């Protein structure tokens, strides 16, 4: 879709960002547009700019140049409360100085919908319970968040985000510290939320194969630049992965259209340049 199209959910134009002081990372001027209902992965190595871009999209960071439009409104002019009703962000991890129960963490998601002195109503409680169900987290709702395993914690954070009843879900490396079975579970939940709940989802991740299997569109990022952007099958090739990660991979087709990429021995360079 074209720039400024009324259907565009996120319209990112010429966005650049630099962390203050001694940090060499820089997000180079970036253009990106995300439509309503998309399931997008920001894929790339650590330090590639995925998390930074995601934080700029939530408004947690302010860009040096360029602008982000969300639903055709300039993001920075939307009050944080209004933003929180529309988009939910799931951080990489969360640490509580003073422990709260899982239920209390999920309840926090209702904050942008409640008035100053308004207590949690029956409707809010139902929203929270449903969020827990969607994330397969109902069974431990009375436990302390800090006592959970990594996979359970991620699902609680996701449930807390869903309790905001958002239209957009932004996840920052949700599978970073999870074992394989929990990585798969989390991606299955994300896929379900996209398909059944109609959520627009943007996931920052460096899990090549999971991203290829569960996501529709991939934005490849390295060193603060977008290298490629498009449907999984077009974007993810041994060549782009070589550029992205500097690792040679071999595509393996087991079933279906999306291949799995496994690291293989680098081929001998065909041409040795001589001068």
């Amino acid at each position, binding site marked *: 879709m074209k720039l400024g199209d009324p259907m565009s959910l996120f319209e990112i134009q010429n966005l650049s960002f630099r962390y203050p002081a001694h940090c060499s990372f820089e997000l180079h001027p970036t253009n990106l547009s995300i439509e309503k209902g998309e399931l997008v992965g920001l894929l790339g190595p650590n330090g590639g700019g995925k998390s930074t871009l995601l934080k700029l999209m939530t408004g947690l960071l302010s860009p040096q140049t360029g602008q982000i439009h969300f639903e055709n409104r300039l993001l920075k002019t939307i009050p*944080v409360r209004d933003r929180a009703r529309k988009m939910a962000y799931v951080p990489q991890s969360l640490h509580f100085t*003073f422990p709260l129960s899982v239920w209390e963490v999920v309840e926090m998601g209702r904050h942008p919908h409640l008035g100053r002195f308004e207590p949690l109503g029956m409707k809010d409680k139902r929203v929270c319970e449903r969020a827990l169900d969607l994330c397969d987290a109902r069974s431990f709702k009375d436990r302390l968040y800090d006592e959970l395993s990594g996979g359970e914690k991620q699902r609680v954070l996701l449930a807390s985000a869903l309790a905001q009843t958002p239209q957009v879900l932004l996840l920052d490396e949700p599978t970073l510290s999870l074992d394989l079975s929990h990585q798969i579970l989390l991606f299955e939940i994300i896929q379900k939320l996209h398909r059944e709940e109609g959520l627009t989802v943007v996931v920052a991740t460096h899990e090549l194969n999971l991203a290829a299997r569960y996501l529709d569109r991939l934005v490849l990022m390295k060193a603060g630049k977008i290298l490629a952007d498009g449907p999984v099958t077009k974007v993810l090739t041994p060549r782009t992965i070589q550029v992205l990660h500097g690792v040679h991979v071999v595509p393996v087709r087991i079933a279906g259209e999306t291949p799995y990429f496994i690291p293989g021995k680098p081929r001998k360079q065909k041409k040795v340049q001589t001068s």
Partner: protein
Amino acid sequence: MISSGQRKLALLLIFATFLVALLGCPLLGSTSISFSKVFQSWPPLPENRDAQIFFQVRLARNLLAALTGAAMAVAGVIFQAVLRNPLACPFTLGIAGGSSFGAVAAIGLGLTAGFSGISMITLFAFAGALLSIGMVYSLASLIRSFSATTLLLAGVGINYFFSALVLLFYFTADFSQSFAMMHWLMGSLDVVDFASVGGVTIVFTGSFLILFSLSRELNLLSAGEELARVKGVPTVQVILLSVFTASFLTSSVVALTGPIAFVGLIVPHICRLLLGNDHRGLLIGSALGGSTFLMLCDTLCRSLFGTTELPVGVLTALVGVPVLLVLLFKRRTYVQS
């Protein structure tokens, strides 16, 4: 993990203890009086000695103890939440240092005369507290950061600065002045009238309502500024509003009583263990618990050694620390550093 039923029960018990302390503490002291005799007739007759002691000597002081304890505990909860630091207390932003400096300066300069019922020492202490908050705020705005870490570091720095000035005044004071300074620095509830109790009541009620209305934001802030923002909390505004409301509350109380140690640190922690960390229950529980704790401590100070009074700040620390340690050992998992 404590169930919500147990929490409600704990809150109810704290409230019951509070009521008993509120009415029971004025009955105790170097002269014992009886409850039935105090309320023999209404209004109490002038010749009713017990009623005279109850209403004119002990009730105002007990109310001040209640308000001071509540204010300290509530402010402690706020500072711990906003700064995300279990060691934060009402004095973290340098209020103890600032108010002590004010009071010590007033004593050192010989300004003991009153000003429409309020002593110069109180006024100076209040001004000193506001000065320290102002300096913390200026430092934070100078480097354009109102994050928890900035406020914490600025507060600790300012506190040391004022402590040094206090020592300087103390060093140059004569014998009677240094006694007066020491007395103030230890914290005491003995100089009080109903007018100042009324004033503190108004400040406390207003501050508590503001802070209680921020309960959910405080829950979110104690989980981190980033999470609070993405869940719709305008973090800078909420941090500033809650920190400065709590500071103002602390300053108003400390100006009258001197910095009473440990109430604002220990009571919130005890309440966290009993009531959990959700601020909706925690703030109410801490207010009631703090006032009960200080009323009991003050009563002990008044009665333990006959007519000689123990400084209440000494007792709050002596009693509070073991209680906290026992609770911490019983539930080791409750706070993560």
